[in-house]
Structures are given as C-alpha cells and as structure tokens.
C-alpha cells in the first residue's frame, strides 16, 4: 500500500504534461480576453467563413462546428476539423494570449469600478459572440434559442430536484401551462383569429408587452404548482414523484380536452416575439435570479430540507414555507421557459409535454449535475448540442444519448458538475499565472 501511495504523485501521464503546458501558456487569461477572442473569431467566420469552407471542399460553412458534416459525409471530417482549428481555435487562442495582460488590467479596472458593470460588459460580449455566430444561418439561431430556453427549464428543475432533493416529474406540466398561457395571451392580444376574437393591438406594442405576458404565464404556471406543492407537505420521495407525475398527465389530458385551446391539435400562430436578444436576456435574468435564490439564506433551507427534513424543522426552519416557495419559484421559471418556447416554435400541442419531455429535462439535469447552477447550464448546453450534432443519425441518436447518460450516471452518479456554486466574481476576475510551485 505504502509503495502505491508514494508512487502516485510521480506518475505523470501525457495529459498531465499537456495540462501543465496549458497552465503555462493560458492560465492567466481572464474571461474578458476569451470573449474578445471568441468575438473576433466569429467575426472572422462571418467574413471569410463561406469562401474558406468552399476552398476546403465543403458546400458551405459548417453550421455546428462540423459535427453535422462529420456524420453525414465522413470524408469531409478532416476539412471540418481544419475549418474549426483555423476559424475558431487558433484565432481565439492567439487573440486571447495577445490581449491577456491588457485585458487583465481592464478586468481589474472594471471590477474596481463596479461588479455589476463588469458583469454587464461580459454579458454584452457573450451576446455579441452569439449574435454574430448565429447571423450566418437561421439554424444556428434556432439551436441557440432552444439551448438558452433549455437552460431556464433545466435550472428550474434543478432547484426542485437538486437543491430541494424532491424527485419532481411535474416539469413538463409547468412548461405546458406556461406555454399555453403565453400563447393564448399573445394570440388574444396581437393576432386576429376566430378562436378568441381579436383585440388586435398594434404589433409595435408586442415587444413591450411580451415580458408581462411571460411573467403572467409564469404566475399561472406557479398557481398550477400549488397542486403539487400542497401534497408535498405531507409526503416526499416516491409518492411525491407520483403526485407530480399525475400532475403532468392531468395538465396534458386537460389541454387535450379543452377544445378552446385547440384540443389535441394544439395552438399555432403565435407572433414571432422570441427573438434571440429576448431569449438571451431572459436566460441571463433567470440565471441571475435563480443563482441568487439558491445561494441565499432561504435557498440554503432547501438544502436543509433535502438533507433531513425533521432536523431542518428542529432547527426552526419552516419547511412548509420552503417547499411552497421553491415549488412556486421553480414553476414560475418553467412557465417562463414554456412561454418563450411557444413563441420560438410558434406551435404548441399537448403531446409534446409528456413523458418524452420529462425524460429530456431530467436527462439534462442529471447529465449536468445536481445542486449546481453551472451543472445545469453545462447539462442543457451539452445535451442540446449533442442532440443537434447527432441529428444525422436519426433514430439511433436516441440510443447513443441514453447510453452516454447511463455511463455518466454510473461513473458520476450525481452528474458531471454537481454541488458546485456558481460564482460570477470568480468567473470574470483577472487571472494570475498558475505556476507549478504556486
């Protein structure tokens, strides 16, 4: 035994030396420089992407880093790789390295000014990267929107399942309530149709009223959550799972039976209100608010309820209040994500909010990691990109993705990045060189 433990630190694999090299070169680059590098690389792609891709023998610039090409026409894999390296990897690395020291000073200056300002600058840069990247094709914009919306949905489920430790299956129900509420409201207000009559407000008002529509649909979803929250006072675990599952089925079945809302055919014709900036803004707001919620003192009571409800009660935590507020809070955000989703797809029908949706959202939460805002973001982004990248495999996609999730569950049972706090300050602070001795 002793020999093993002594020899452990000396063992050096190739990736250790690679990681050291990486630290040597890039560990002192702040987030600011990475974002600027990303922005420059997508601008580069915007201008020379298509000709360069044609030069490499691809019909057009690869829409999703070449994943889609890799599976459809494997012969183009080398050129897709080359494209990625020349358009994305090299510019980002070079630019980030070049402005690393300057941006460290800028980041420090911003942080000294005010943390809000610094965060806003980073968010604006991130948005610029996404906007320019998405400008090249509508498909990219759609993937971006769906991914951002999935982040909201995943975060809100993680609040219940990860932070409060209930196994809730009610998320599709909440999302459905939000989606339908927002659809109905916006159709009543802005679309002239025979279903609800016409109020026909001018379309120029729509972007201003849309936030209120979303908030209202979130609230409606939260009211629906009362059906799950109240029984959760008396029971937990499997029985709550069933109650929440029954809730999902009830909502789905109700929507199928309400002919006013189109019945099983669903609703279509929502105005195109979920543009990329709107979705992006809502996602950032949701991350901000949910992160504040889970790191607040009140948020910590959720963890107490998860780890021992009786003990929490004994420590004078009002567990009922915690459960109630958490369920309503999570349902609110699920409803908002549903409202956004309805306006991205511009079509909702009840059958899209069933077990498949549940498996999808649960998959994202557990893929990314429980009890972690970063984990949820990683899970939502990872699953969405994976699912888009594997699209050419058609049906076999749904064999490969579950296998990956099973493997993750076996080797990391709580998900990839579980139990980690999301610290904005840490993310955007200026970085110092990570030396081998330091």
């Amino acid at each position, binding site marked *: 035994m002793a020999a093993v433990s002594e020899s452990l630190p000396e063992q050096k694999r190739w990736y250790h030396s690679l990681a050291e090299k990486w630290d040597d070169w890039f560990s002192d680059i702040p987030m600011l420089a990475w974002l600027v590098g990303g922005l420059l690389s997508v601008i580069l792609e915007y201008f020379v992407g298509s000709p360069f891709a044609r030069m490499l023998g691809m019909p057009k610039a690869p829409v999703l880093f070449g994943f889609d090409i890799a599976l459809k026409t494997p012969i183009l894999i080398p050129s897709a790789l080359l494209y990625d390296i020349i358009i994305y990897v090299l510019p980002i690395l070079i630019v980030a390295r070049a402005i690393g020291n300057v941006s460290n000073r800028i980041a420090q200056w911003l942080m000294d000014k005010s943390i809000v300002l610094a965060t806003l600058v980073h968010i604006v840069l991130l948005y610029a990267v996404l906007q320019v990247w998405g400008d090249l094709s509508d498909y990219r914009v759609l993937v971006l929107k769906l991914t951002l919306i999935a982040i909201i949905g995943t975060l809100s489920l993680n609040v219940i399942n990860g932070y409060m430790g209930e*196994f809730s299956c009610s998320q599709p129900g909440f999302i459905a309530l939000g989606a339908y509420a927002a659809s109905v409201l916006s159709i009543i207000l802005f679309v002239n149709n025979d279903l609800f009559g016409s109020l026909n407000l001018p379309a120029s008002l729509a972007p201003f009223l849309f936030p209120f529509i979303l908030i209202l649909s979130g609230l409606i979803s939260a009211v629906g959550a009362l059906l799950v929250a109240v*029984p959760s006072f*008396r029971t937990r675990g*499997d029985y709550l799972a069933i109650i929440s599952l*029954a809730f999902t089925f009830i909502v*789905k*079945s*109700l929507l199928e039976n309400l002919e006013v809302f189109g019945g099983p055919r669903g609703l279509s014709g929502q105005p195109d209100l979920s543009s990329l900036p709107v979705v992006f803004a809502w996602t950032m707001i949701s991350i901000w608010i949910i992160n504040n919620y889970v790191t607040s003192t009140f948020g910590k009571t959720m963890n107490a309820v998860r780890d021992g409800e009786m003990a929490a009660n004994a420590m004078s935590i009002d567990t009922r209040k915690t459960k109630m507020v958490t369920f309503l809070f999570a349902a609110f955000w699920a409803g908002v994500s549903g409202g956004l989703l309805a306006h991205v797809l511009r079509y909702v029908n009840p059958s899209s909010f069933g077990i498949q949706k549940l498996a999808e959202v649960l998959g994202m939460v557990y893929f990314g990691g429980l009890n972690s805002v970063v984990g949820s973001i990683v899970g939502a982004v990872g699953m969405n990109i994976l699912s888009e990248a594997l699209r050419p495999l058609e049906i076999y996609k*749904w064999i490969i993705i579950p296998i990956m999730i*099973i493997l993750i569950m076996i080797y990391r049972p709580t998900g990839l990045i579980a139990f980690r706090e999301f610290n904005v300050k840490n993310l955007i602070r200026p970085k110092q060189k990570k030396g081998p001795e330091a």
Partner: protein
Amino acid sequence: MAFFLQNVINALQWGSFYALIALGYSMVYGVLMLFNFAHGDIFMTGAYIGFFVATGFLGLSASGILVLPNWLILILTILISMFLTSLVGMAVERIAYRPLRNAPRASAAITGLMVGIILETGNLAILGARRQKFPDLIASQTYQFNGVSITNTKIMIVLVSIGLMLALNFFVRRTKWGMAMRAMAYDFLIVPLMGVSINFIAAMTFGLGSALASAAGILFGIAYPVLDPYMGIIFGWKAFVAAILGGRGSILGAALAGFLLGFIEIFVATIFPSTLRDLIAYSIILIILTFRPHGFFGEPYSAQLRL
C-alpha cells in the same frame, strides 16, 4: 345491471394487465428500494418476444415441421417468452441498476428511464415504425349470460393473471428464494451475512417482475392484437402509479391497486367521453394520494416493507 356487470368484466381484464405490471414494480421496490423505470418497456419487449415466439411456432406448425395445437402453442409461448424476458430484465438490472446500487436513488431512476428509451428506440430501429399484429392463437368465442357477453379470451386472461399472482404469492411465501427476498426487503444489510447473495436475489427479482410483465404483454397482445414500440410508456407509467397507490413494496396492494385502476378507467370511459379517461383517473389518484399519502398498504418512511 347487465351494463354494470359487463363493465366489471371489462375492468377485470383491463385491470389484470395493470396488476401484473405493477407487481414487477412493487417487488423490485420491496427488495432494492428503487423503482425500475424501464419496466414499462420490459412489458413492451415481452409482448414483442411473445409475438416472435408465437409467430415462430405458428410457422413451424404451418410448414409441418412441428405441428402443435394452438392451446399448446399459447402455453409454450407464455412460458418461453416469460423466460426470455426475465433474461432481459436481469440484463437491465446488471447494466443499469447494479453499478448504481450505492448511488442516490434518483440516479438509478434516470438510468432506468434511459434504458427504457434504449429499448423503445432499439425496437423502432430494428423493426421499423410499422405496428405488428399479434397472431390469433385462440379463436374468440362469445358467451351470453342475461345480456352480459363474455369472451373466452377475457376469462382466460383474468384466470391466467390471477393464477400467476397466486403462483408469485406461493413463491414469495413458501420457497427459500422467496424467503430470501422477504429477508432482503426486511433488512438489506443482514442478508449477506446469512450467506445470501444480494446480487443473485436482485437479479432474480428483476427476472420475476419481467416474466410477469411479459405474461401481461402476451395477454395484452391476445386481447388487443396491435403492438407498437411505445405501448410500454402509457401502460408502464400507469402501472407505476398503481404500484405506488397500493403502497410501495406491497404485493397485495399492487395487485389490488392495479385492478382498482382498471375499474376507474373502464367506468370513467363508459360514463364520460373516453378522452377524459386519463384526466379523471389521475385526478382521483391525486386526491387519494393527497389524503392517504402512503398508498393503501404502504407504511410511511418505514424500513419494514410488506412483501
């Protein structure tokens, strides 16, 4: 009255599918304290295995290699597919549940869900989206009693499922393996000290549950001879609800709740428009669980589970 009796008979048939599937959930819960979320898809797999076995036997009969009467084919089909499906169930346990035995229970639930998706998609990928027609093994005969019509398949289905439940009860109560299962449900930690292999008992429990689900699948195929890859979803989740409603880990409770769910669904469908079936059935379940949160025979937070 005749109307009522007619629906009782329909409900008995419908409920026996739920009861058979719910037993699988409940047994696995009793032994391992977790739900096998792939169970609905094991039901589907069992039905498909039954379809292939029955078609194979019928083909053998038709070509004259091995001529068997249809009732013998039915019995052989049920037995062989129960055996084969129990192997599938054991494989699921080995792949998705054994590596996660010490992990949080929700993680095991996720792997179960994912195995279910793999089974569905695998079926879809291999056989295509075309629905399969389950072969007619017994000619349907209808008997009339005072305006109540009973088919021989209905009688057969109810009798076979009740027989299987009694056999399961015998197995759990009277055999050594059943005793080991009950012991494991009683105390997970002591059982290995008594020289009983946890892995063996867990695999056996999955196998038993899957065998019952396979029988349910074949009976379902006889009553409603259309199989599609997603048939397990609706049935599986409803049977899961029945298992919870009966009280987790309680075999008697699962069987009774399965029949109860069948009754609720059939009577709702006859009284109200049938599209309201799920809505009302789940609302009733929600109300029952709100007022009796631990099911009929379940015990709150207790280590002792009835099996």
